């Protein structure tokens, strides 16, 4: 149990900072890199990587991948060209990653450079002996089907080589913007969110930890889960800050108002506070988070950052588990046996997904219901198949089963209070 072995390393002397390189790929990646390039990340090496001109970038190292093939026109939004040119210049990429313990690949997927180069870069970094963590955005749905597909295949490729990928679908940010937000602001916002997550990870790695999160833990969390991670960072001050951060976290739009927490398969929680961070607060926050995501594997860390003064900052990276996708071959070819696979996938994870199963159902009945539900979806077949979303825990609402649910701040009040609050009756 990695999570429960904090062995309080209360030492406050600085951790030995691993050599980190942050590489921005494609125009989106380079833009984000510029956001990152600030005092917070002192000690990290920045590399901007693109097929277009890089004159605008503030990064100290700029690599422009250029070849006659492209005639100075960039990849033209074609990841295959991006991939090809990256393969061609593999040695350059590997060279750039040389000497780093950890490489962060920052990119916006969907275009030619981001989706094409990132996987190759990740491989080059691996070969250079570094751990690779990807921070990528997925395009908005309105950007079109082709970009979505490119992004998805780029993401799959990146995941297959990188140690971990934190992926932010831009679509999620629709929760954060209103009618009047300009396109520029929206992109700035998505970039900002990703940068924020990178900062969170950076802090985890470099700040002295009371309860330290190891990079391995992080990688284990984001690796091999063919699903999206969502990310949220909240801050609060004052005496009730532990309670407040939890409230903010649950209300966070990126976490689907707490639904993401409930559905998460694994999550990483990092608490940062000034010197006055108390163990009781850490305990309170973790207890509450644990209550909201009972099924998740939680990795937690707590650290002291004096610059935070009396603020308490909580950063969570939530990975939504998607076991069906894991069983399916990564791309295409999900043909004849998909139905049985879904059935297997669903029943196989009953224990993990459904907190307290309906008291009235025998396991056989449950299995039957679940297979039926999945069957309807599965019949479509093909690579575009999606995981059916099941209702969370099956708690009968008895008398209120069919009436309009009483929802208050995302909580279904028809469910007995003691169940929602997790009060045990022994």
């Amino acid at each position, binding site marked *: 149990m990695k999570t429960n072995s904090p062995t309080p390393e209360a030492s406050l002397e600085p951790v030995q900072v691993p050599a980190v390189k942050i590489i921005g790929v494609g125009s989106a990646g380079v833009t984000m890199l510029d956001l990152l390039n600030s005092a917070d990340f002192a000690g990290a090496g920045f590399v901007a990587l693109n097929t277009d001109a890089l004159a605008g970038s503030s990064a100290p190292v700029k690599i422009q991948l250029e070849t006659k093939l492209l005639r100075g026109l960039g990849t033209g939004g074609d990841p295959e060209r991006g991939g090809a040119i990256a393969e061609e210049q593999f040695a350059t990429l590997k060279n750039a990653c040389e000497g780093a313990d950890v490489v962060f690949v920052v990119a916006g997927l969907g275009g030619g450079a981001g989706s094409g180069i990132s996987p190759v870069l990740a491989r080059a970094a691996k070969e250079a002996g570094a751990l690779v963590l990807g921070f990528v955005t997925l395009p908005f749905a309105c950007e079109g089907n082709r970009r979505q597909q490119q992004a998805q295949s780029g993401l799959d490729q990146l995941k297959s080589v990188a140690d971990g990928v934190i992926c932010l679908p831009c679509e999620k940010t629709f929760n954060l913007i209103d009618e009047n937000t300009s396109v520029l602001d929206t992109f700035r916002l998505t970039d900002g969110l990703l940068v924020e997550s990178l900062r969170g990870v950076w802090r985890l790695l470099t700040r002295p930890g009371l309860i330290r999160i190891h990079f391995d833990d992080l990688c284990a969390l984001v690796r091999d889960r063919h699903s999206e991670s969502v990310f949220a960072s909240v801050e609060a001050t004052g005496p009730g800050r532990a309670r407040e951060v939890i409230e903010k976290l649950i209300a966070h739009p990126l976490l689907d108002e707490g639904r993401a927490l409930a559905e998460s398969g694994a999550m990483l929680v990092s608490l940062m506070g000034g010197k006055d961070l108390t163990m009781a607060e850490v305990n309170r926050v973790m207890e509450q988070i644990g209550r909201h995501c009972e099924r998740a594997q939680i990795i937690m860390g707590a650290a002291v950052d004096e610059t935070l003064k009396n603020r308490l900052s909580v950063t969570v990276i939530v990975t939504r588990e998607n076991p069906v996708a894991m069983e399916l071959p990564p791309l295409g070819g999900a043909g004849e046996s998909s139905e049985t696979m879904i059935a297997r996938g669903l029943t196989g994870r009953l224990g993990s997904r459904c907190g307290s199963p309906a*008291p009235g159902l025998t396991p056989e009945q449950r299995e039957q219901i679940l297979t039926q539900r999945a069957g309807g979806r599965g019949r479509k077949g093909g690579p575009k198949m999606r995981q059916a979303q099941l209702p969370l825990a099956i*708690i*009968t*609402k*008895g*008398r*209120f089963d069919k*009436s*309009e649910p*009483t929802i*208050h701040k995302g909580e279904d*009040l*028809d469910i*007995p*209070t*003691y*169940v929602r*609050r997790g*009060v045990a*009756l022994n």
Partner: protein
Amino acid sequence: MFDDSSLIVGLEIGTSKVCAVVGERNADGSLNIIGLGQARSRGVRKGEVVDTTQAEEDVRNAIVEAEQMADVEIRNVYLGVTGAHIRGFNNRGVHPVVSADREISEDDVQDVVKNAKAINLPTENNIVHAIRQHFFVDGQDGVTDPVGMLGARLEVDMHVVHGHTNRLQNAIRLVKGLQLEVDDVVFNGLASSLALLSNDQKELGALVMDIGGGTTDYVVYANGVIRHTGVLAIGGDHVSNDLAYGLKVPLSRAEKLKREYGSALVDEEIKGQTITIMNDLGLPLKTVNVEHLRRIMSLRLEEIFQLVAQDLEQAGLSDYLRAGVILCGGCARVPQIAPLAEKVMQMPVSLGQTNSVSGLKSALDQPEFVSAIGLVKFGSFKTRKREGKTSLAQGLKSTITSFWRRS
């Protein structure tokens, strides 16, 4: 037989019971309760009708019983409504006084009230009540009757209670289907507060919580006027349902256990106690842990108070309730509910007693009849008002005016 105009009937189609109260206005204007009819409600969930056939039958039974008891024929009723769709909010209307001498006339008052009611409601919603709070004359606060005063700018604060038109109509249609006329539709929480609060309490500021079977209706008075109303679709039904779920007993049994052994607090001495449930033949069927029963109940009731307290906190009214909290509705019968509420809300809590109404003592002392009695009281205000006015053309809603203060 009584003169029809002196007869006022309040009908509440509640989640656990349908209840009709017949009141009679004496010559001196005082109110006397002369009849009460009730029937177990089967077609209502969370305060709203879900099964018209059954609800209709229940209403008929209650009305018939009330008619027999009071020995009258009921033709008109004041209908109590509730449900999660009902909301209340405050709105301010502004009107410039244009007359040459700057004297505020009756017309100005009507205009400003009209302005305050011109609000942006969703098209499918309808105003149930629009209650005048205070007038402002040139920004001067606390004016109750501005007619005759001088000023350039007249403003009024209104408290508007609105609900979903179709869902309100469901109840009205049901009653009309029984050949009864609906005089007016009244929000249950408002009716309860009318029945319970004295003028002093309204002035001091008070919260009336009517915790019924399906909903918790609450009304806040401060400085003599209604400041806040709300409905929480949680009530005694939820308590029973929680018990049925938690103790794994049928709902009817849970209901019975709640009545016989329930309490809002978990006492030390009941720890470890058990109840043996017998079947029809007197054989033991199941044992239930009393502590669990109380714990489940306590948590649910505590949550109700917490949610209401949160709402008041948000509305910024927590500091205005100097007369404290007054409870009514079926859940007010739960033993020790007042201490629990005191613990959560941090203010004095008492169980409501209907005052200023005389008549059947058996009806007046029950907390669950408070809102039905309040409906009768509402009706009596209304008829009194109507008698005072020569014209009825003002429309029904506009009649609810400053008499809240004078009541």
